[in-house]
């Protein structure tokens, strides 16, 4: 049969989660290239939205793409260029961040950012008895970040949980460490911390450990980093739960795209991965020890 080319365009590994994405994309590409001689998967990473636009332009300008699996840096900037590629008859799979125009995508695979925030908030409301002081660390100003924060705020609505402070720490563990130190200096009583990403949670935990403060009952993150899952498995008191936002969704998306070409029926539609609470009981399912994330 004619050889099919599937291009995968993802952000460059610039923090833990995207590193996981790159890892899983490469793993999927290697597996598929070995298993399906008729399919070639090409993975390209881009450090910014505009370079991602350039990258997909370059890919489509120099070869016939049968499918494009894309995890867009930003929705708006990628919408028009992806639409242009779709016009050439390319099958479009969008992962994680939707494009501004959902008509473009043939297949959509995503986690649920709102649920990440919402489920975490619900856990805190229940376990803190409906009241307490929370500090929040947010990432880089983007849709993902906004959605998680929104989900969290929806989740605590109606309770007496009070968000003392909310600041950006750019999904960077260093900045999170500093920010947490400063929160600790500023607020004498903190009941829980939510860092909306596990990279940041690492910094938070270190700062709490250093301060020796005992009153903090929970420090939670999100995304399902293996170090944090390990804590959950071990029954850690401060980080007993985790919300998944697995970078492996890129692998899922690539496999689904391949299935569209190799299977007998077209694969189209929307797949929203749930973000259930990971607890001690189900943690093993979310644990990938060989992944870098």
């Amino acid at each position, binding site marked *: 049969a004619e050889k099919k080319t599937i291009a995968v365009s993802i952000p460059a590994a610039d923090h833990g989660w995207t590193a996981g994405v790159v890892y899983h994309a490469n793993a999927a590409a290697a597996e598929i290239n070995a298993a399906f001689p008729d399919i070639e998967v090409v993975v390209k990473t881009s450090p910014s939205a505009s370079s991602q636009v350039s990258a997909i332009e370059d890919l489509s300008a120099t070869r016939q793409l049968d499918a494009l699996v894309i995890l867009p840096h930003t929705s*708006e*900037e990628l919408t028009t260029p992806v639409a242009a590629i779709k016009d050439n008859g390319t099958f479009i799979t969008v992962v994680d961040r939707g494009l501004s125009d959902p008509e473009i995508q043939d297949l959509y695979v995503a986690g649920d950012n709102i649920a990440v925030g919402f489920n975490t908030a619900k856990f805190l409301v229940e376990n803190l008895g409906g009241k307490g002081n929370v500090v929040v660390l947010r990432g880089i100003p983007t849709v993902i970040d906004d959605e998680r924060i929104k989900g969290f705020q929806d989740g605590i609505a109606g309770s007496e949980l009070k968000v003392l402070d909310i600041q950006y720490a750019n999904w960077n563990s260093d900045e999170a460490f500093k920010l947490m130190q400063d929160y600790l200096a500023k607020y004498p009583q903190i009941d829980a911390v939510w860092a909306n990403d596990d990279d940041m949670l690492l910094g938070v935990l270190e700062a709490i450990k250093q301060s020796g403060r005992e009153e903090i009952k929970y420090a939670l993150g999100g995304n399902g980093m293996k170090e944090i899952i390990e804590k959950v498995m071990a029954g850690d008191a401060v980080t007993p739960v985790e919300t998944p936002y697995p970078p492996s969704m890129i692998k899922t998306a690539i496999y689904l795209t391949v299935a569209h070409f190799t299977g007998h029926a077209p694969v189209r539609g929307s797949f929203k991965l749930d973000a259930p609470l990971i607890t001690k009981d189900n943690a093993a399912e979310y644990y990938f020890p060989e992944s870098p994330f």
Partner: protein
Amino acid sequence: MTDVPAAPPRALQGWSIGWGDVGPFLALGALVLIGFLINPDFLSANNVANVVTRSAFIAIIAIGATFVISSGGLDLSVGSMAAFITGVMILFMNWAVPSFGTAAIPLGMAVALVTGIACGLLNGTIVTMGRIEPFIVTLGTMGIFRALITYMTDGGTVAIDRSLREAYRPVYFGNVLGVPIPILVSLAVALVAAYVLYRTRFGRRCIAVGANEDVARYSGISVTRVRTMAFVIQGACVAIAAICYVPRLGAATPTTGLLWELQVITAVVIGGTALRGGRGRIWGTVIGAVILEFIANLMVLSDFVSEYLVAAVQGVIIIIAMLIQRMSKR
């Protein structure tokens, strides 16, 4: 009347391409050749058009930076400024479209230009009046512009109104006689800039201020005014770049223009402008921007570089390009 030995003829010196400075062109030539050997598609009309069109963005901003740098300044804020201007422009157009329809586009362009000039004026004024290193000032305003756009959009993104999208599209995607519009715009900007830098008093004074501030001051040049003006030109260039690229990006996001300042400065330096001032090369800058874009393109088109190492290979190529450029001078 004079017994001055005749100077060797230096045809085409000045605002047409300066043949004395072939360095950047050589580097580009070498790069294109290597690219072609690696992947013949590299020179497909389509690919070349894409790459050059893309480079227009950095090229236009870098043309402005050529003024700032040759006058002895530096502007790190161009990336955030681009994001800020894009944001202001889109917010304005979206606000204006109910009343003005597609006339919102030219109005938005005017607003962008005014905003750019104001931003440049701010940078220039702080640098010259406060006598603070441009590095620090523009690092500060870089944070300021970025924060302002984040604030104005509530931490998120502003997308251009759907109804304007199609009308505005040709500014990036259209072409005249087959030449993409951004290329035409950047050529026009470069022509005007070359005229200003090489053929006007202001340009001459820009270089003089960068070459030796004391001499310029003692010769009655207002160093303050010239430096400030260079920053204003930079602001205007950023605005023009933003205007061209709104249709490509369709939105301003908090990550728009991130790290562009480094690309811009690299383009300027590869082009042969001296980072310490006193020497400006408009056409070199344009070529420098094209070189950078070709390098990035080559990374995508070639298959043997691990994606983790792309940045490393890019770094090596830039250094080599610089070496070629330097060597050609001796």
